[in-house]
């Protein structure tokens, strides 16, 4: 999986969690919280949807890694690839 595909996977989750947000012009280097109305409940849901849809575990200590799309891609892409390699 490329970093771009990883960002798409995260965006797909946000689109389902927060359908009232306009995701057409996301800046990948800006904190998601600063671009959208996402609270801690929403971030909990991003983590839980990652587990549910992709089998990816994000420990609570690492929630900060999900701040922006760039940091998501940086942090999650290796996890996606490690899972693919195991399959």
């Amino acid at each position, binding site marked *: 999986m490329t970093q771009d595909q990883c960002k798409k996977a995260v965006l797909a989750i946000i689109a389902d969690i*927060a359908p*009232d947000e306009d995701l057409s012009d996301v800046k990948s280097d800006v904190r998601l919280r600063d671009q*959208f109305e996402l609270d801690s409940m929403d971030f*909990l849901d991003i983590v839980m949807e990652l587990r549910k849809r992709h089998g990816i575990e994000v420990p609570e200590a690492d929630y900060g890694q999900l701040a922006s799309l760039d940091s998501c891609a940086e942090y999650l892409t290796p996890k996606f690839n490690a899972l693919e390699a195991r399959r």
Partner: protein
Amino acid sequence: MNSRAHYDVAIIGAGLSGLAAGIRAAHFGRRVCIFERHNAPGGLNGFYSIGGRKFDVGLHAVTNFARPGARVGPLVRLLRQLRIDREEFGLCEQRRSRIAFGPKGEEVLRLTNDFAFFESEVAARFPAQIDGFRRLAELVRGTVYSEDSLPASARAVVRRHIADPLLEDMLLCPLLMYGSAQENDMDFGQFALLFEAVLLEGFARPFGGVRPILRVLLERYRTAGGERRMKCGVGRIEARGGRAAALILDSGEEITAETVLSSIGAPETESLIRDAEVGGAPVGIPRTPAGRITFVETVSIFNRQPAGFGWGEDAIVFFNDSRRLAYEQPEAQVDTRSGVICIPNNFDYGPERALAEGVLRTTCLASYDRWAGLPEETYRADKARWFPEVQRSARRFLPPADEAAVAAATVATDMFTPRTVNRYTGRLAGAIYGSAVKNPRGTTRLANLFICGADQGMLGIVGAMLSGIAMANLHILRKG
């Protein structure tokens, strides 16, 4: 019966909070079952049928209205958490409502879903208080009711900002009536919650009342994979080693679950706990006191729209005829001095749509004890005696109508009492807002048993659902 069903999560009660909690748990892959003693879902926000007509219980209006496109607020958070599209609830806004005080309702504050309008009403009627009122509203906006909230007197906080006792009571009236389990006061955190719900955000209603909301929740729960067993009450909770080890159903069947979430009320839940290690005896007295606040409600159905009687456009009227508001359990069966009128026809359903029949609901404080023990015949006679009293009192706060026309247009009436509430929901003393002692974290003396719903502390339709969500997040989902 020898194969014991086991679940990740067992939920007691299929009301709004239980259903919302169930949706969260099921959506994230937990094996969930909701057990409901009644044959219909909804609990305190349910419905019943008489003569082919459906009557809502509970829901007058959905509070916390947010317009399409809104991205913050309790309603938005709720819809996001349950993955429900706001269109599915089909919320239609109120046109207007009113707080009316004085023997003839001459002291009036009107409210809409635009807070600036309410603020202008306060400024016009209470010019000396408007600065204090604005400071109070600011304080409310900055207050968050959370699992860690500490109790504080709302009246004490209000008095720091508002010196006129009339305005104090007029502000507290709708908030007490729509959610306080405490007599004559409420916790400031809950005041803030309800101030936001009722005054800052406002009222809406689905065209079909509470049933479309329940339908959406049930469908969402089903597609998420949740199970539901109706007419299947939980008779006891067996405690072993400080945990809820098993649920014994009314049928005698035994269920086990990793986590149990109970939406039936804190004292009601505590009274189900039996300590298996000391021969199944109830353990001590229940710790949470039962609530004292309960109501009667009369319902009249008309074959025409209520506006035709000259009753105006108000959807909800909160009224009080006395010098001070007495929000407490009355000495008599009913206290008709204050109450709430709801006319469901007066929401804006669009130009092409109106409810087929006219509806007038009037609600007054009542005493459970004075209704509970009566022989059936006396009970019926007392209902028949109070029905016109309640309506007469409430109608003082509506423009006068032609009595003969109202009577001729009346096609059905009904009335429920605290006894009815107790019979159908199991709420002790018919206390619809639960115990005066709230438990924001929802914990009990059993490590895997938690409370959600009114006794957790979030109130109203939206609050009930958010309570289920918050408790499922805290006690089920965040534990991995």
